[in-house]
């Protein structure tokens, strides 16, 4: 849309499920993937006469999230009932927050140093889930396991200017929530959900245009794809001289198109009013302070520190701090091993590839930071080559063991002894007389062939720099002999 006459304006609403043991208003477990309707009680089933009791662990996590996102905590906030009928909502209203949310403001930093401002964060309960069984005969089943799970809803200002920026915002937000340990942010399990709205306005105009809302965005890339699609659709609509309708669109990840929801479903008047069953939520400054005191270093500051303290490049710092666990792992290796650049290169390359192939986490990796530091030390003191180190790493990952022992067992120790390398060089020169002739005749390229032949003969163990020097010295000697 580079030459588009319009500016894009995007706002996002993100729901994150908090990592509590129990639900927000009852003692039922907050857990995904159990037998339907096995994690329910009279309270979350909305039985007559039940009352909500606020889970203060959920408040603590919500405050933690708000502080990590640099929001302002309201000392007194109010729960409100959001009224609508749907079978996944047992009480006929959702307990949420409306005009007095617990957090206002906040921001998510982007990689280019800019920030996306938040309007607010509020606490609310999740609804249940409708299941539509195979061979749909018009019936739906209701699973209320997640009904009452604690959520925070994070609302951005309408300040995001492109689908790409929306994507980067979500990546940054997720990193912060994961760092703060408030949510597992698992989109497949619905722990993180995102709705988006988008409008266009003529370039330079300050008044917002008519927005549409996009729902059913099941991944960050779906958010980006849907926003791209919708920006294009709105641009065409406006260029055709038509108006954009205020409506809600459902994204279809398979057809890569959005279609309007039936208008009936969006015509809600939620009739908010203060929840009379819960007193106002008072969060006193000492509670905020003690939560702030336990906040870990966040990705942004950690990134800066990695560049300064370990001298790693920005890109490596971003990769290494993309999860707190990987960053911890790196710091443990770096504490035991002085070549931070080599450690960074190995972690961002080989190590991450093994992690993703096994779909595991740094903390669960079969090769711990101590073993990795010892392995890399063998590279640094030239006991083994980097390619040998990768072979050893593979064995350590799959079978375990001690790096030095594996090196010996696989006979990977580098040949650096000059006498041994000399013998190797002599036999290679003897066995490859035609190539030696070519080299001496001025074909410099053949040198590489001869190094390869020598390396092959050594079983890959020859120290490449020692070998290179010895081979060149021997050849030059021959050339000199001829001239003489």
């Amino acid at each position: 849309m580079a030459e588009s006459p319009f500016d894009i304006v995007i706002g996002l609403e993100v729901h994150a499920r908090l990592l509590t043991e129990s639900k927000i208003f009852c003692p039922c477990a907050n857990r995904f993937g159990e037998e339907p309707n096995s994690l329910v009680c009279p309270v979350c089933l909305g039985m007559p006469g039940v009352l909500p009791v606020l889970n203060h662990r959920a408040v603590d996590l919500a405050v933690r999230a708000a502080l990590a996102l640099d929001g302002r905590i309201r000392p007194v906030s109010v729960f409100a009932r959001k009224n609508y009928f749907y079978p996944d909502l047992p009480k006929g209203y959702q307990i949420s927050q409306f005009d007095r949310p617990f957090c206002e403001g906040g921001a998510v930093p982007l990689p280019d140093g800019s920030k996306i401002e938040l309007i607010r964060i509020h606490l609310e309960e999740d609804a249940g889930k409708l299941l539509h069984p195979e061979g749909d005969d018009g019936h739906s089943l209701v699973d209320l396991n997640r009904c009452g799970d604690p959520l925070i809803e994070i609302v951005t200002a309408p300040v995001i200017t492109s689908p790409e920026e929306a994507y980067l915002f979500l990546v940054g937000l997720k990193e912060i929530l994961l760092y703060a340990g408030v949510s597992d942010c698992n989109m497949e399990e619905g722990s993180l959900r995102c709705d988006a709205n988008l409008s266009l306005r003529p370039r330079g105009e300050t008044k917002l245009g008519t927005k549409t809302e996009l729902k059913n965005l099941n991944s960050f890339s779906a958010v980006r794809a849907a926003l791209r699609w919708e920006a294009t659709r709105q641009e065409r609509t406006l260029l055709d001289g038509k108006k954009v309708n205020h409506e809600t669109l459902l994204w279809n990840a398979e057809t890569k198109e959005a279609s309007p929801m039936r208008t009936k479903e969006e015509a809600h008047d939620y009739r908010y009013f203060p929840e009379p069953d819960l007193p106002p939520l008072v969060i006193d400054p000492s509670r905020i302070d003690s939560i702030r005191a336990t906040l870990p270093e966040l990705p942004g500051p950690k990134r800066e520190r990695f560049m300064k303290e370990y001298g790693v490049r920005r890109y490596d710092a971003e990769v290494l701090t993309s999860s707190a666990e990987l960053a911890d792992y790196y710091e443990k290796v770096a504490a035991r091993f002085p070549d931070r650049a080599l450690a960074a290169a190995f972690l961002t390359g080989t190590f991450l590839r093994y992690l993703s192939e096994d779909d595991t986490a740094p903390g669960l990796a079969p090769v711990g930071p101590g073993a990795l530091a010892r392995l890399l030390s063998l590279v640094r003191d030239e006991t083994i080559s980097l390619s040998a180190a990768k072979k050893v790493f593979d064995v350590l990952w799959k079978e375990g063991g001690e790096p030095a022992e594996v090196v010996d067992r696989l006979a990977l120790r580098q040949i650096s002894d000059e006498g041994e390398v000399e013998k190797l060089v002599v036999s290679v020169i003897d066995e490859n007389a035609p190539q030696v002739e070519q080299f001496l005749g001025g074909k410099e390229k053949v040198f590489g062939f001869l190094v390869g032949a020598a390396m092959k003969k050594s079983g890959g163990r020859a120290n490449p720099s020692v070998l290179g020097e010895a081979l060149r010295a021997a050849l030059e000697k021959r050339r000199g002999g001829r001239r003489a």
Partner: protein
Amino acid sequence: MDLRNAPAHTIRDAIRDGSIEARAVVESVLDAIARDESDLHCYLHLAGRDRLLEEADRVDEARRRGDPLPLLAGIPCALKDNIVVKGMPATCGSKMLERFHPPYTATAARRLLDAGALITGKTNMDEFAMGSSTENSAFGATRNPWGRDRVPGGSSGGSAAAVAAGEALFALGSDTGGSIRQPAAFCGVAGLKPTYGAVSRRGLVAFASSFDQIGPIGRSVRDVAMVFDAIAGVDPRDSTSATREGGGTEETLDAGVAGLRVGVAEEFFREGLDAEVARAVRRGIEALRVAGAAVVDISLSSSRFAIPAYYIAADAEASANLARFDGVRYGLRRGASGSLGGMYRATRNDGFGAEVKRRILIGTFALSSGYREAWYERAMKVRSLVAADYAAAFEICDIIAGPATPTTAFRLGEKQNDPLAMYLSDVYTISANLAGLPALVVPCGSDRSGLPVAIQLTGRAFDEATLLGAGAAVERAGLFSGGPRADGGEHHG
């Protein structure tokens, strides 16, 4: 002992000291039920006779063994049908919940059971506690034991009538705008609406959550104090329950009213108040003065807005509280073969009675976008004005005395087609709910046809002890010849 007329606290003492057997007490109540229930229709559900007698026998055996007896051991009591008890239905007087069996027991009911009380059954009520005559019950009206062509009041009419007729020694009701006090006044028994938060609401099927309170109805003020002491106190499962220990009011009941400042608002004695009721209430106030209290003039001018504000704010909450009755999980389900919207409409259309639908519509309207400020928010402002009026009054007095109801019990059917006239029968009781204050009604006389008249006393928040002490002083004056009449029919004149 005259079991038919003795107050529950004397029966409690007699069971504990062995001068009477719990079995005899239960039999007396079962006899009253056998004699009058088919005519009065106080109950929607009765516990099994054999089970009640077995439970009574266990109390008697325990006493004979010398085991310590809990405070209310062997006392038969009735619960309004919107207070849930596991093992008994809870219809709330509605077809919507006709076959509903709650999976848990309300905290207040649990406390009575723990105190050894025996639950005789669940009492009739206006559907979802919306009404002032118990005629809005989907299962037929209750008659007033004092005049069987009269309503018992409502919405806790079944509870008040059961206590008046000896079909229970005491009962629990719920009071959102007067639903304990108005029927207690109509039935010649004492009734307390506790301070909002004094008694747990857990297990009370919500009508208007910021108004509802469970409270006792008894034959005497001491009975009411005894039951209040048993059910009051913080409940961690009700976030609006006060974080204080309740109770202890029975101990101080006889402290007297010497020096107590009794506020009287003349606004409450103007138009709309029946002259006979006014006379009896003034005699009640005079009794307090004679007992040593000082009567002072106060003004509660915002109370003239109390009724409209109440019917907006309470119905707004009700419109949300009653949304859960949708046919999806429990209770009535109609039209399930059609669309989701069709099921909702058919279920709620068939399940709710006319008054409940009216309240839901009023409440939904009052919260709707574009109307919320003019209605709901204005009602909330009135609510704070009413509370401010009371706060000012309690600067110069300790309790407020006045009428409980504009008239004595009206005739069955008399106001059923005139909702506004029906709403006005709560004119004196609603303000206490708006302000969350405790209020007590105590019989203080009768009208020409022998129907009871009650005085209403309103106290400071959480000062039930003073309130009940003053009520006991009115009672001691003997203005009301208590004891419900067996035939009842002779009263209507």
